[in-house]
């Protein structure tokens, strides 16, 4: 569609400038993973080195924090994936009493400021005298990511062709068989997207984790704690690896799903 407002070339240039602005700090992060700083501050460029890639796990506390982040993210992805799929499938497939209230609850959980969710969870944990650590972090992460999984799965379920289920029933399949043999394979890509989204939200989360971690360190919390004394280049290397892994995964899953889209 050509709108002939003119200046579309100008808008094109503008779009790329904005993308450049978005990428600038990422480029800085990657670049300073290759820096060879002389002092404690990794702030000015002082020469190229691959040293930090070899010594990426040399700082024990930082590595431990990264491991905690990964474990919490895996647990969150699995639990939120399962619970969110249940909600998403039920909301997409049936109309039932209470569905509206559930939708409202999910909307509130998505729209509420992280600061408020984190501080209210801390209030509850403190009131109960519950210990803070990896378990309380995981509880919090499942809480804020389950709605996202549910929304993604529901979006796929509402587009399902009901005649598929009828055909399976006509051929004598039970409800259980129909779900696992017909429905589940169709909605699996949506479930996987939801699981990946939950993983990404969890590993990056700072605010809610900050409130529910106690003395436990996660990757973002460790970075936050060391900003004043200066970040070691290992943080840049780990950040670069997470970035590269995430981008690779996103690109691969996009390529894999492309031919199917064409066939449909």
């Amino acid at each position, binding site marked *: 569609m050509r709108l002939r407002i003119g200046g579309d070339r100008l808008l094109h240039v503008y779009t790329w400038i904005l993308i450049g602005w978005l990428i600038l700090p990422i480029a800085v992060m990657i670049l300073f993973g290759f820096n060879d700083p002389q002092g404690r501050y990794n702030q000015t460029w002082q020469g190229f080195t691959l040293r930090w890639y070899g010594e990426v796990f040399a700082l024990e506390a930082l590595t431990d924090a990264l491991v905690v982040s990964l474990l919490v993210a895996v647990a969150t992805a699995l639990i939120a994936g399962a619970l969110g799929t249940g909600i998403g499938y039920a909301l997409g497939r049936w109309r039932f009493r209470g569905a509206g209230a559930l939708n409202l609850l999910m909307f509130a959980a998505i729209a509420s400021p992280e600061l408020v969710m984190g*501080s209210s969870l801390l209030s509850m944990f403190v009131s109960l005298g519950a210990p803070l650590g990896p378990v309380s972090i995981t509880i919090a992460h499942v809480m804020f990511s389950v709605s996202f999984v549910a929304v993604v799965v529901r979006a796929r379920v509402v587009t399902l062709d009901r005649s598929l289920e009828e055909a399976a029933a006509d051929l004598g399949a039970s409800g259980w068989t129909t779900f696992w043999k017909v429905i589940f394979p169709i909605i699996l890509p949506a479930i996987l997207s939801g699981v990946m989204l939950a993983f990404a939200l969890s590993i990056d989360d700072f605010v809610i984790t900050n409130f529910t971690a106690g003395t436990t360190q996660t990757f973002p919390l460790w970075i936050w704690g060391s900003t004043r004394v200066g970040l070691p280049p290992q943080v840049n290397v780990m950040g670069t690896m997470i970035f590269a892994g995430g981008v690779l995964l996103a690109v691969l899953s996009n390529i894999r799903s492309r031919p199917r889209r064409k066939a449909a």
Partner: protein
Amino acid sequence: MDRVKRTLTPYLLVLPGGLWLLLFFAVPMVTMLSLSLQEGDIVNGFVFTGHWQNYVDAISAYQTQLIRSLVYGAITSVVLIVLAFPVAYWIAFYGGRRKATYLFLILLPFFVSFVLRTISWRMLLTDDGVLLHPLKEAGLLPGDFQILGTATAVIAGLVYSFLPFMVLPIYVALERIDPRVVEAARDLYASPLTSFRKIIFPLALPGVFAGVLMTFVPATSDYVNSELLGSSETTMIGQVIQSQFLSNSDYPSASALSFTLMTVLLIGVFAYARALGTEDVMKVAAR
């Protein structure tokens, strides 16, 4: 029997996730409300006394930070609309087969930890950093010029952090516009500017609304940007709440502040929805 099983199925599926949300989202809000009305200290414990004075004290002590946060949040959202609309417009109408690629590029920052991105900005903006040093050398900026620690730095950081949340909903709204509607406008001799003003912009408004919802709330309550890029002159309410909770363990007054922030944001969002006045808008937001 089979019928009973069928009507029970959705409830069984929803139960674990729904309970999780109730126990760890809804119940904590009630606990926090109760905590905000208690008196005491961390050593001797807190007792519920219906102490509304907590709110009065907390708000009068930190109204500057509260108002500042709302102002920063509002400026951030307005700047975001101006910056994001042209990009969303270009991708939706001129992106062609590369639309997905452009959107992916817009989303790239999400693959880097929020805290790490903001620290990168701090590095870029330091007084003798990569950006300011050359400009000062060239005499384009005075030697004592600085950005870090100013409101500009904090708002720029907030704008950077939430830009994708504004581009995406506007893009989705623009993408849904039926090309025939715009063609019809042209057939009826509407100038390009008129068709933009009367057709495209109004149809994009639900996207703008969703974008404001998705950026104003997190920007107002953010404390990462103001902590890393700001100074004591730019302290936001999030920093106050965070330090009251985590450093001072003054739970009642921190809870009162947190609750006040949420109430103010909720009122703001509803007033904004009322002002725009269409039911469509709420529907899009609820989606």
